[in-house]
Each structure stands twice: as C-alpha cells, then as structure tokens.
C-alpha cells in the first residue's frame, strides 16, 4: 500500500512478552498453553466476547463456554512496524494484526502475523494460528498465512 519493501515479518521475542491473567481470562491462556485456540462464549445466549469478561454484554449471564475454534481467521486490519519495542533488542520487522476468528463471530484477537514479507499482507487474507513461547511458560497465539 505504501510501496515500501520491509522483508519478512518476525515474531516478537517471547522472552520479552509477559501476560497476566484473572479469573475470567485464565481459561483462554490455559487452553493456549495446550495450543488450543478458544474464545469466551456466553453459556446462556452463545454471544462471543474478547477479551473475556465477567458478564455477557448481550444477556448479562456469567455462564461461559470455551469452545475449540478451528484456529483460522481473517485479517481485519494491521500495521507494519520496523523499530524494536525493546531497548535491548535490535530493530526488526513485525506486523501487529487484528484477526476476525472463524467460529467465533464478533470475537477478534490482536496478535502478530509472521513468516511472510510484511509488504504482502493484505486485509481479508486468511490466516492460521501458530504459537509463540512467552515468559512464565505461557504461549501466545500468533498467525501465519493460511
């Protein structure tokens, strides 16, 4: 779109990524640890919500399901960055991406797209989940071109 050649989109170094969890988000991350992509679904009305929260915004129920999703999705939008977010890591190219998740209408993940030239990423592209090992034994869902 901007005519700039960036080269391959890289993973963000996992040893620099931390997450924290709470009662409502922990099941998502426990599933991720087992490389299973899920999203928070209301156990009463079926509405999906991400990030997971304590009430369904559609029906206010607190019942939740954690269905196994196909692990595929569609690029809704993205950015291309080529400065390192960390002072102790040299610059590298990475692509923050917003993904519409298949099997979970309305639920999105904000993640990274890796393993292809950044300048070739387009909105509407199909992607498949992969996993980035991050700190404290957790795994972060990232995406590759499907």
């Amino acid at each position, binding site marked *: 779109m901007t005519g700039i050649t960036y080269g391959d989109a890289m993973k963000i170094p996992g040893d620099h990524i*931390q*997450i924290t969890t709470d009662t409502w*988000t922990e099941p998502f991350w426990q599933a991720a640890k087992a490389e299973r992509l899920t999203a928070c679904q209301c156990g009463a009305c079926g509405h999906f919500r991400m990030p997971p929260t304590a009430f369904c915004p559609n029906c206010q129920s607190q019942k939740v399901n954690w269905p196994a999703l196909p692990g595929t999705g569609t690029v809704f939008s993205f*950015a291309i960055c080529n*400065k390192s977010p960390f002072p102790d890591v040299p610059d590298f190219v*990475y692509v923050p991406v917003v993904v519409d998740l298949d099997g979970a209408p309305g639920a*999105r993940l*904000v*993640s990274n797209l890796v393993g292809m030239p950044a300048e070739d990423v387009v909105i509407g592209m199909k992607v498949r989940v992969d996993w980035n090992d991050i700190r404290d034994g957790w795994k972060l869902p990232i995406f590759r071109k499907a």
Partner: protein
Amino acid sequence: MVWVNQDKCAIAGIGATDYYIRGQSFPRTINEMVGEAILKACEDAGISVKQIDGFAYYSGAQMGYGDKADTASLMEMLGIEEVGFTAALTSGGGGAAGAVGLAAAAIQNEDARYVVTVMALQQYRQRLGTVFGASAPSPENSFLQPSGLVGPGHLMSVLARRHMHLYGTRREAFAEVVISQRLNAMNRPQAVRKTELTLDEYFASPMLADPLCRLDFCLETDGAVAWITTSTERARDLRQKPVLIHAAAHGGSRNWGRAFAWMGMPDPDFGSSGHKPIGDRLWQLSGLQPSDIDVALIYDHFSAMVVMQLEDYGFCAKGEGGPFVESGAIRFNGGSLPVNPHGGQLSEAYIIGATHTREAVEQLRESAINQVKDAEFALVTGGPASLPVSGCILRRDS
C-alpha cells in the same frame, strides 16, 4: 432540543506556560507548571486565585500519563480557601473538550462560581509515545500489548489502514493535515515545529507504524494550560470578552468503547473517530449544523484521526474525509473550514488537547495570531480515544 444551559456559562480567562520539547521543562515541577497556568488564567480573567472555588478536570485529573493533579495540593500551593466542586471526566484526552460541560454543570448547580480546568504534561521520566509498552500488562491489556502496538499512534495506525481499505483514503490526505497545520504554525513564536514542509519531505519521513509515519504523530512536548469558567453574567463584568459555552457533550457508544485498546469495533466504527454520537448531540444541543462552524479545533494526536473526525462531525460524508481534506477545505488560507489555525498538536504543542481550547478562546476574542475573520462559532473536539470522547461549541459574545 436546545441545551438548557446554552450560553449561560463562559470561559473568562485562560493561561499557559511556555511549551517545551519533551523533557526540557525539567527541573520545573509539574505542580509548578499547573500553578503558573492557573495564576495566568486568573490574571487574564481579572480575578484573584482565591476566588477559585471549583475544579473540573478531564483525563481523570491525570496530568499527562503518570502524574496526577490533586485539588487539595493545588489549594495548599495556591492559597485557594474553599472549594464546592472538584470532579473529573474519566479516562484520558477524549474528555478534553467536554470538561467545559463539567464546569458548566458545577456553575449551573451553584456548587461553584469560578471553576478551573487545567492540563499539564511533563515527559522527562516516561515518553507518552511508548507509554503502553512500558507498563506491565493487566489481564485486559494482555490481549493487546504482546502484539507490539507500543503506543497510541501504533494502535491508531490499524484504524487508519481500515479506513484506507474501506474508502480508498490516501496517504496524501494525512499529508495534507500535517502540511496545512505546519503552514499555520510557521508564524507562531511558541510553536515547536515551524519550518515549511513539502509533500516530498512528508513521504521521506520514516514509517513508525505503517501506514503512519513520524510526521503523522503529534509532538511530544511539556507545558500546562488552564482556563476559568464562570457564569456568563459574571464573566461580562471581568477583564476579557467572555467566550460562551454554546454546547458541550461527552460520552460515546459501546461500539467504540475502549476503541484501539480493544479493536473489537464493528464497521463503520472501526475506521472512525468514535465521535459521531458526540457530533449528533452537539448539533442537536446547539441547533447549529456543520456549515455554521467558523473554525474547528480538531484533536490531532494523529493526522488520520482528523480526517475521521471531520466525517463524524458531518463536515463531509462518511468515507469522504480524504478527498475533503485533499481539496484544500481545511486550509487557514482559502479553506471552507479552517482547521487548527494554531498548528495543532502536530506542529505547535501537545498538551493533551488543552491548546485547542486556548486557540478557540483566542479566535472568539478575535485576538488569535491566525485570526479567522468574524469567527462566531468554534468547534473543539477531544481525542479519539477510550470513552468518553467529547466536543464543545464555543461562541463569541455579542
């Protein structure tokens, strides 16, 4: 229905410190800069600081991100004897233009007579541009921060790309916002960036978060701005010509919500500024329409968000913000809607929206450096950001 408090309150005085490039205000303290801005606002209005009896902040009374104003400390420092109102709009810079509505509420409820609104920013410890990456992620933010979207501009680049995808918006439109505001800043002594900028120079600016380049990002500056709101009746007895609060609104819809800190917005809210509900309310509260606005102070933390706000306030149709700005419509010289004649946050200084209110006041007193002729109505907007977003229409006193 026209707002019940229309024109009943007014900005009576405004004051500001110098504007500094990020970090260069050190060793001044942030409370010192807040105090200077408030004292100058009182001097401008022709009141004693001891007459202040209310505080109406925005951004949760944060001064920038990391510092916080505390009414009790300010009272102690400045010798303010008693307050009847001290409150803040929640969240961040989204409320910048709505704080006058909070001040008007204090006055119309007779809780206070002279209400100060103040914002200050000092960035010698933490740069605002990378503020998100520096904090340990909360459980909520753990769904955002690991993506490497390290600052607000990175987050908004994702919105800008969606807008480009849906409507064919070009980088030339973002460039026009930047270049037109730079032209406006060139004759301003206090502006931080005031050298003329060409389209070639814009395109040579390094990408920070493609599709946004460094010049699409606002300045990182230090400083403080404060203003005094009182009843229009009292203001007319003070030193300056009052600037009337014609309409004010803050809030927004869940489809925007936490916005780029969430990324769950459906179309068309995703590629928007979140300001459409505010625009709709302002036109209703004021009885005006977009063509009645003489000068617009549009929150310009990132150039692309100016384009989207112009759509959401109805200055052009949704999706046509790009062609609208590329037509020259927002130029101070010759445009149909002069936008940010002070150079805005992209070229003059960034004090989280407060410089826009300052410029609106100067325009409506007819004392601005780049004065829009016969300006009667000024629109001021708060930042497209997590709710609330906000806007106000200020009016020249007759």
